[in-house]
């Protein structure tokens, strides 16, 4: 089926070349990092994880978000999702590949990556994260490919594949659960050390992932003559609204626990993220604008998606609503959650993190690689759809 | 065959490409290097053939014994006690890394095993 990715109009090739440019820049930037070391990133002794791990964390959520299509379609037999479950599965594949690339970019000794397999350590959540991420990646490749092949041959998918499809559902939940456990099991990092990290991760994933799928569906409608169907889009939007509200509700609960209990450790990071943290006469607040942008975009997105006029009347408003939610939760989880958790340091000192240009190029390049893969996978999927219809 | 005009040159280019190491290194074969053995010691920690083929594995075993298991027990050769240590045992006899280690490592193109990133050869 790969041949479908090799035929496309000029816009298709221009888009791939555009992404290819950023990938090439990132390759050069990564080689530089590989030979010089992580000193050319903004990461420090105090903020020891930066953009790479925060993007990884966010993208695990995007990958898990695809299950919001798979679950209703296969378990509740919600037929309207039939045409677009494949979009969710293929989005998961490219998001997971981005995740694995971000992990590799973050390692100090990337050539030793296999040590995680050679010396399995079941006490480490990173070990389990590797297992569920690879598991979910393989399941999505398998299920996506088999279902698409059957569709092309206009036969029902083989019975055995349903085992793997159903298996992929708990896996989707587990990838984000285990990713949250990387954080919420660490003593002494108060912002992360809360059981609500796990449900909060899932909620934001089930909003951000489907929001990206809606955006993709709207783009495909314009550029590839592929209509996901009004009913399907409408149902996804409902899912996004509830999941998004749940995420912000959980965050509000964090505010309550921190400020009502008045325990300094519980308040510090929230203060740093939203108001700026005063320490020895300096105010540290480099993430404050991003966090208020998150809150503002959340309400903008919620308004656009909830109001029937903008939600159903006009694709542009609908797309903007989804983009607002996606960006909002990227700011929340893809920046604030990981970077904020390191402030203050265990020695009550404050180091702020500013990514370097080299680091930003690598980050953009990995996103571009993900979208490159996604474009090719969607091209194949839609090529098959058109072939069947014709 | 369809497209034989494209397939055959393509295959040729592919074969040439994967055999680059052979073309690139042709005519540079060298004689097996002679290495200088320590004069006043008769035997090594393993027989000659074994130490030649397995010295890297032995070093790894010592490393894991000492570092991971805290087993710093010594062993005896010709009445003398030796520690499980690259620096304190191997390099005591083979004091000159440039004359002893490097010639063979260069010959087999394992130029700098990363031992030397952190461990030091004695300075002459």
């Amino acid at each position, binding site marked *: 089926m790969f041949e479908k990715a090799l035929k496309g109009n000029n816009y298709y090739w221009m888009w791939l070349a555009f992404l290819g440019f950023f990938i090439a820049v990132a390759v050069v930037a990564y080689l530089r990092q590989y030979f010089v070391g992580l000193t050319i990133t903004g990461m420090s002794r105090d903020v020891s994880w930066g953009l790479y791990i925060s993007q990884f964390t966010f993208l695990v959520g995007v990958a898990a978000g695809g299950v919001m299509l798979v679950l209703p379609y296969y378990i509740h037999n919600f037929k309207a999702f039939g045409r677009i479950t494949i979009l969710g599965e293929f989005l998961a594949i490219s998001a997971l590949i981005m995740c694995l690339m971000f992990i590799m970019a973050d*390692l100090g000794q990337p050539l030793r990556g296999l*040590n995680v397999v050679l010396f399995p350590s079941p006490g480490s959540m990173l070990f389990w994260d590797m297992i569920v991420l690879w598991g979910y990646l393989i399941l999505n490749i398998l299920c996506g490919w088999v279902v698409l092949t059957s569709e092309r041959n206009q036969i029902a998918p083989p019975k055995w594949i349903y085992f793997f499809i159903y298996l992929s559902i708990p896996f989707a939940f587990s990838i984000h659960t285990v990713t949250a456990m990387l954080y919420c099991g660490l003593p002494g990092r108060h912002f992360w050390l809360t059981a609500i990290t796990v449900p909060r991760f899932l909620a934001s994933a089930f909003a951000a992932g489907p929001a990206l799928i809606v955006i993709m569906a709207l783009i495909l409608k314009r550029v590839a003559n592929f209509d996901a169907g009004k009913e399907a889009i409408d149902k996804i939007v409902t899912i996004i609204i509830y999941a998004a509200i749940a995420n912000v509700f959980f965050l509000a609960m964090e505010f309550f626990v921190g400020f009502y209990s008045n325990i300094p450790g519980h308040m510090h990071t929230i203060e740093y993220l939203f108001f700026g943290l005063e320490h020895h006469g300096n105010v540290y607040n480099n993430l404050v604008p991003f966090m208020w942008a998150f809150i503002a975009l959340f309400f903008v997105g919620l308004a656009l998606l909830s109001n029937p006029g903008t939600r159903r009347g006009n694709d542009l408003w609908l797309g903007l609503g989804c983009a607002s939610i996606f960006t909002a939760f990227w700011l929340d989880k893809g920046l604030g959650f990981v970077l904020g958790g390191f402030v203050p340091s265990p020695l009550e000192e404050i180091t702020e993190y500013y990514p370097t240009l080299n680091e930003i190029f690598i980050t953009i390049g990995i996103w571009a690689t993900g979208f490159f893969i996604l474009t090719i996978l969607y091209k194949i999927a839609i090529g098959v759809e058109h072939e069947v219809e014709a | 065959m369809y497209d034989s005009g494209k397939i055959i040159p393509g295959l040729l280019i592919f074969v040439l490409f994967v055999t680059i190491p052979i073309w690139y290194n042709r005519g540079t074969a060298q004689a097996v290097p002679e290495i200088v053995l320590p004069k006043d010691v008769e035997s090594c920690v393993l027989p000659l053939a074994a130490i030649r083929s397995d010295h890297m594995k032995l070093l790894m075993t010592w490393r894991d014994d000492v570092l991971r298991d805290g087993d710093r027990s010594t062993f005896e050769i010709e009445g003398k006690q030796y520690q499980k240590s690259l620096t304190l045992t191997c390099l005591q006899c083979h004091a000159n890394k440039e004359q002893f280690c490097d010639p063979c490592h260069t010959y087999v193109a394992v130029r700098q095993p990363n031992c030397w990133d952190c461990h030091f050869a004695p300075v002459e």
Partner: protein
Amino acid sequence: MDIKRRNFLKVAGITTLAGLGGTAVVGRLVASSGLAQAAGGQGAAQAGQANLNGNQTNPGVKRYGMIINLKSFRDDPTLGEKIVEACHSYNNVPDVPNPKDEIKWIWMTRYENAFHENYHLYRDEATEKQELPVLCNHCDKPPCVRVCPTKATFRNRDGVVVMDYHRCIGCRFCMAACPYGMRSFNYIEPAPYISNLNQNKPRRMRGVVEKCNFCVGRIEVGQLPACVEACGESKALVFGDLNDPDSEIRKLLRENHTILRNPSLGTLPSVFYIV
């Protein structure tokens, strides 16, 4: 109807399978992380918080620890610099100028930084000015060891938390996990920043995490850690086996009121402070 029931049965079956698998996984996790013996660990057996690092011993198994007497550091203000220098030059710890890439094994910090949990508005002048050494606590329940995905950092048979630099992949999970901020990462190639190279000890390569190891190579051959030796007769630092009731360190622990950094986290540090 039929189809729905079949789907339900499939889902139920799979859920059960996942459930069984999950239980097995949890069982293994509990066993491997030592939750089953939560009160104990390799060191002194403990009955909850009341007996934190208590009196019982575990014969035959060592658990090295250290007492830091802050009075000695008040009496001799140069002592701090001496121990840091002794450690860093013995262990080839690089002196990286950029604080972002800094490597530290032991260093002097203020009371408010090391003991921020015990810090209040009306502190005495001595405490206010106090500079005290911090180093790896060699916890009995080290979170850094728990999270390491390759067992590159582990608790050795003498209760010392050590690093296997050969195995470390540089993921820095241990740095996020350490609640004391005692770990450093070699962001930059360390070699150029080591001024007086100690040829008998290795240095580190770029891309691995490092920290104090109680000079494990010295204590295994019966010597004291470099920092303890640098204190000479002052007894500012006392090193010994916490599992040996007759050791000097245990004697001092019996005779003095000692405090720990962040005891509420349950990591059971092996480094004690006499204020």
